């Protein structure tokens, strides 16, 4: 790796971290013609905050008006919709409804509505109880009123960043996985970066290290300009049979601290309830606990009574890279050729493309960039249930994961190409193998055999004849 990295010569920009933000930043800069290198410490991309979220493409209706977050969420939203067909990316046009369950919450809908209008989201509609239940007949009749936000959509949180990075790679970006940034010095207008795979030189650096953004900040500047305080969100995924119970994202009236527990369809044809908001120190351990899972199940059945007794497919948690302050911790230090994109807490999936354009403009000094229509198009695997999945096309060899209908052809594709899956998580995010209702009862051994020798950590502990 060291030799390879050296052999590639010096880079214009080094992006630290291949979360959704780093992937989008790499794409933007590569499309501007920059020679980009992405350093990711994990065996695969999306190893941090970006591996577990609610997958909602936000309109920014509730963002702090006039903030960078507001601007980037909306720019990201627009660009996603503009590029998605050329990248084969799904969108489920669910709309969302903020539901008021108490008179007090009904009163707060006014303020939410005026923020939405101030934020340029003008198509919001107040709905009364009857209209709510007409739209979502399975919703608990305890719902009092709501605010419909038609533009809130659901996307695939993993194929999108993968597509951004592949597009960057098609413009010669280098992606070094298993490569941790350890330190760096800025001298004579260039960065000399010290990495776990040897030294790398780049003119500019963009810190997109998410949950480790403050650590990377310190390793580069000698100072922590902010502190990451991970905020965990736990989720429960219901069986696909639940999907027909709900078509719209159901949001609560938010509190100061969190957007609250959401019930949302997914592009994979599931129904999701979560996330919670639990502060913790650990930046890696995205664990769930039984009492929280049980509380989420109860909450879900409160909102949608038909969910009582619905089988659970999976539980997971994601860690938000929150900081001591609410806003994005974006910093551009021109004298250091350094941009820090820190504290992208709870809207980064949507804002990534907007943040990327902001960074690209800052580094290149130009707002202009190759229009999306000129960017190389490429097709990432389609995992969305409402689109034509691979198994619908004959010649797939074998269906390996029956619950999610994952074919051997898909698994082989995910293990090859310019950015093959680096670990089991990466394989799951690229194919959904093992992510269905049986959680690998039927397919795990087969997947272990198909991936033997291909992943950083093998699925099996050994062979029978060892």
């Amino acid at each position, binding site marked *: 790796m060291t030799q390879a990295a050296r052999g590639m010569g010096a880079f214009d920009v080094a992006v630290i971290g291949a979360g959704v933000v780093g992937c989008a930043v790499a794409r933007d800069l590569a499309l501007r013609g920059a020679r980009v290198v992405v350093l990711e410490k994990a065996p695969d991309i999306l190893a941090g905050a970006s591996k577990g979220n609610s997958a909602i493409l936000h309109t920014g209706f509730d963002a702090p008006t006039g903030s960078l977050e507001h601007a980037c969420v909306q720019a990201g939203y627009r660009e996603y919709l503009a590029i998605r067909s050329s990248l084969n990316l799904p969108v489920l046009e669910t709309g969302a409804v903020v539901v008021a369950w108490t008179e007090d919450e009904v009163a707060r809908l006014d303020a939410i509505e005026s923020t939405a209008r101030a934020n340029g989201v003008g198509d919001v509609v107040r709905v009364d109880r009857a209209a709510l239940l007409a739209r979502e007949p399975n919703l608990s009749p305890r719902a009092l009123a709501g605010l419909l936000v038609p533009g809130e959509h659901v996307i695939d949180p993993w194929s999108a960043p993968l597509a951004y990075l592949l597009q960057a790679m098609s413009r010669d970006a280098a992606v070094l996985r298993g490569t941790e940034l350890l330190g760096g010095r800025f001298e004579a207008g260039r960065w000399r970066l010290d990495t776990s795979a040897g030294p790398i030189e780049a003119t500019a650096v963009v810190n997109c290290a998410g949950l480790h953004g403050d650590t990377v900040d310190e390793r580069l500047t000698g100072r922590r300009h902010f502190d990451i305080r991970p905020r965990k969100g736990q989720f429960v*995924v219901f*069986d*696909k*049979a639940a999907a027909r119970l709900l078509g719209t994202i159901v949001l609560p009236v938010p509190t100061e601290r969190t957007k609250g527990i959401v019930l949302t369809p997914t592009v994979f044809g599931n129904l999701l309830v979560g996330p919670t908001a639990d502060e913790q120190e650990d930046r*890696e*351990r*995205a*664990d*769930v*606990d*039984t009492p929280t*899972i*049980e509380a989420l*199940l109860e909450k879900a059945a409160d909102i949608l009574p038909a969910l009582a*007794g619905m*089988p*659970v*497919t*999976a*539980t*997971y948690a994601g860690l938000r890279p929150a900081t001591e302050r609410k806003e994005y911790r974006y910093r551009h230090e021109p004298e250091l050729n350094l941009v820090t994109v820190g504290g992208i807490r709870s809207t980064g999936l949507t804002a990534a493309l907007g943040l990327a354009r902001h960074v690209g403009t800052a580094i290149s000094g130009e707002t202009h960039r190759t229009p999306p229509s000129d960017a190389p198009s490429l097709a990432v695997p389609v995992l969305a249930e409402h689109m*034509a999945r691979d*198994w*619908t*096309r*004959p*010649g*797939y*060899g*074998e*269906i390996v994961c*029956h*619950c999610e*209908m994952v074919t051997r052809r898909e698994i082989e594709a995910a293990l090859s190409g310019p950015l093959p899956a680096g670990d*089991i998580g990466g394989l799951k995010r690229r194919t959904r193998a093992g992510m269905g*209702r*049986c*959680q*690998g*009862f*039927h397919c*795990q*051994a*087969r997947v*272990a*055999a198909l991936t*033997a020798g291909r992943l950083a*950590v093998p*699925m*099996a*502990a*050994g*062979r*029978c*004849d*060892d």
Partner: protein
Amino acid sequence: MTDGPRHLSCDVAVIGAGPAGLSAATALARAGVGTVLVLDREGEAGGVPRHCGHPPFGLREFGRVLTGPSYAARLRDEARSAGADLRTSHSIVALLPDGRLDVMSPAGRIDLRARRIVLATGMRESSRAARAVGGTRPLGVINTGALQAYLHLEGLVPFRRPLIVGTEWVGLSAVSTCLRHGIRPVAVVEAGRRASAPWPFSLFPRLAGIPVHFGTVVQSIAGRERVEGATLRHADGTVRTLACDGVLFTGAFVPEATLARTGHLRLDPATGAPARDAAGRSSDPCVYVAGNVSGAARSAGWSFRDGRAVAAAVAADLRALPRQAQAAGDRPREREAQP
């Protein structure tokens, strides 16, 4: 472009080629009900016994003690020689009203119409997620079904020192499977006060020197890449962590009832299985339910006998129907596309 589906019809379509489906198909073919098509999504027919490397299977059915794989082979041979048409690598994607099935095979999609359908899709053990066990999600957390497939189908070992959860017969069989492959369970835990499997089988892990903890549940699983340990909570409230490199969740069977749950069949709210009457008929008069998918969690021999009993009901039902014009022979017929 994908071509449209092939349109096929048959007299009876059996979904699932496990002991129940294969015994039903054998009995139906022998009863001369016309074309009997057995569809299974796996590459080989036989169901769960295919990967049960151990005896005893087949004592009552075939009068001898067989291992799972040879029992499965025997079931296949019988069904074929009776005249049933076995199609593997055929996934049923949807079960629709009026005896229609949406089927996918590597060669393409099939719109299948059958006069009667036997649903025999078996059961599976519930996953760690379905049991709401906390912790991280490292490699090495699996069910017995996967353990057997690792060992017997792929020649791979998923872990070396697992914690085993559950003392139903399948949990005890998992202990013996482990020991035969040099895997040393660190302990067996059981939420109940005593073993689920009957004495004296329940003594087996202790005899093998493996500690058994009753009134104990797995609270959470730790580990980043692979399992590093499990936190146990005992009935008296004490909590302790046990080092292990895997957690095997055994038993707690749930019916593999997706086709019913996502389709139109009525479910039994207690078991989540498609409801059936004494003859095995579901809420759709075209569809019968056989074997473990009925919510039973019983042995292969029971499933075999259940399949045969359901087949008798299906055959009687078909005989009572006005005879429709149909081509002779045991091959499924191509038919015109129709709405």
